[in-house]
């Protein structure tokens, strides 16, 4: 017998099983099961045949991979012929949405962390010195992560639009618009940060000229309002989703009080900004953000683990609905 025990035939057999699961995804159970049985039996008989002839394990892996690769086109054709011209792939959109909400937590941190420079006229030279000391690859990685976060937000907007458009079209449009806006603003913020970092390098290289310092300061000054705009749009999108999650029973525990609390704190932050009550401003924005992130983590996990949602008792959401209501 071969040195390879069955079920541990290695990567080749696992890859074949994964491929079968992939191209039969969404097919009626009878077709999935039939093909799965055919392949599982084939893998076993192939293993036994090679084990009996004392073939080297590598030959079995090679033959399995070769047979799977050569048959891929036929597998796809089989799928098309089975369903006719209309191929239905049931994407688990709720799980996808959950994964995106969880990813948005990371994206939120990334998109807001570019802010935080002392942009005061006196202390800015030190800030620029610090920015110039950051290695080029670190700046590139950070910028790429920010761009990724922005793209993630735009993709999330598409996913939530697809998920909600039939049951709550107005909510879907509002949430998708706000989330996509947050994504675009994040990418703008990334490019501003990259430009500021380039200017800092130039400033350090050409003898710390005043013109470079002024230009870099102008760019970093832009980062604060950009961060605020990202926070407002993202929070708006989340509160809209909170309304949808509660009304449409998207998750078992939608925690509306948490989202409502976060929305109230956000509004209070705006009040503190207007009255220039700085201590309260940071306290309120932090509390608003933490409660929003906790809501995102809870909802994201419930969507991801819960999978398909149960039908809504409340039915469709009314079109006229405000984000923080």
């Amino acid at each position, binding site marked *: 017998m071969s040195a390879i025990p069955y079920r541990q035939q290695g990567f080749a057999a696992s890859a074949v099983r994964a491929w079968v699961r992939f191209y039969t995804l969404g097919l009626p159970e009878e077709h999935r099961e039939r093909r799965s049985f055919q392949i599982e039996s*084939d893998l076993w008989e192939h293993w036994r045949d090679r084990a009996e002839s004392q073939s080297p394990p590598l030959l079995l892996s090679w033959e399995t991979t070769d047979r799977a690769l050569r*048959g891929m086109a036929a597998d796809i054709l089989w799928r098309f012929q089975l369903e006719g011209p209309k191929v239905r792939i049931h994407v688990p959109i709720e799980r996808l949405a959950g994964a995106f909400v969880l990813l948005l937590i990371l994206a939120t941190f990334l998109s807001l962390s570019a802010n935080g420079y002392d942009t005061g006229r006196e202390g800015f030279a030190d800030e620029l010195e610090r920015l110039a000391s950051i290695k080029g690859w670190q700046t590139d990685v950070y910028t790429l992560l920010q761009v990724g976060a922005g793209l993630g937000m735009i993709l999330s907007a598409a996913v939530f639009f697809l998920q909600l458009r039939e049951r709550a079209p107005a909510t879907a449009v509002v949430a998708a618009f706000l989330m996509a806006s947050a994504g675009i603003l994040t990418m703008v913020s990334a490019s501003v940060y990259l430009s500021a970092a380039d200017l800092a390098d130039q400033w350090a290289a050409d003898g710390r000229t005043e013109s470079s310092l002024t230009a870099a300061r102008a760019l970093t000054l832009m980062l604060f309002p950009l961060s605020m705009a990202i926070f407002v749009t993202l929070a708006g999108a989340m509160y809209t989703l909170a309304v949808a999650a509660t009304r449409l029973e998207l998750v078992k525990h939608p925690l509306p009080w948490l989202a409502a609390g976060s929305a109230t704190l956000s509004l209070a932050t705006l009040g503190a900004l207007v009255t220039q009550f700085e201590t309260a401003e940071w306290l309120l924005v932090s509390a608003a953000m933490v409660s929003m992130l906790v809501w995102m983590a809870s909802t994201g996990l419930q969507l991801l683990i819960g999978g398909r949602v149960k039908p809504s008792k409340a039915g469709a959401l009314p079109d006229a609905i405000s984000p923080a209501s």
Partner: protein
Amino acid sequence: MRRKPGALLPIEVALLRAGVALFHQGEPEFHGYAIARAVADGTESRRLTAHGTLYRALDRLETAGLLESTLEDSAIAAAEMRPRRRLYRITAAAETALAAIPEPRAAPPHSLRKGEATA
């Protein structure tokens, strides 16, 4: 190019011929891998038919009424500690269809090992 209704592809003819050969060797029922092995043994390269090509062709032959298949009793598979096999059987229609197709001039002999098909 669209194939004519009822026309058999070379792989389908090869599978049927191998199935008939197995039948004449006392193996009226065969599983997917056994037929792939039988076809491979009859070729110079001895290369096994790809998974997708093999099972798509077997499904087509079954739809055309040239093969019949049954899923093996789960108790048999469990007793032998292996996955259940789908067992195929050549129909009379297949023999008629094959008779209408001229034999290849120098068809290599099938060197099938007795007992491997459904053992």
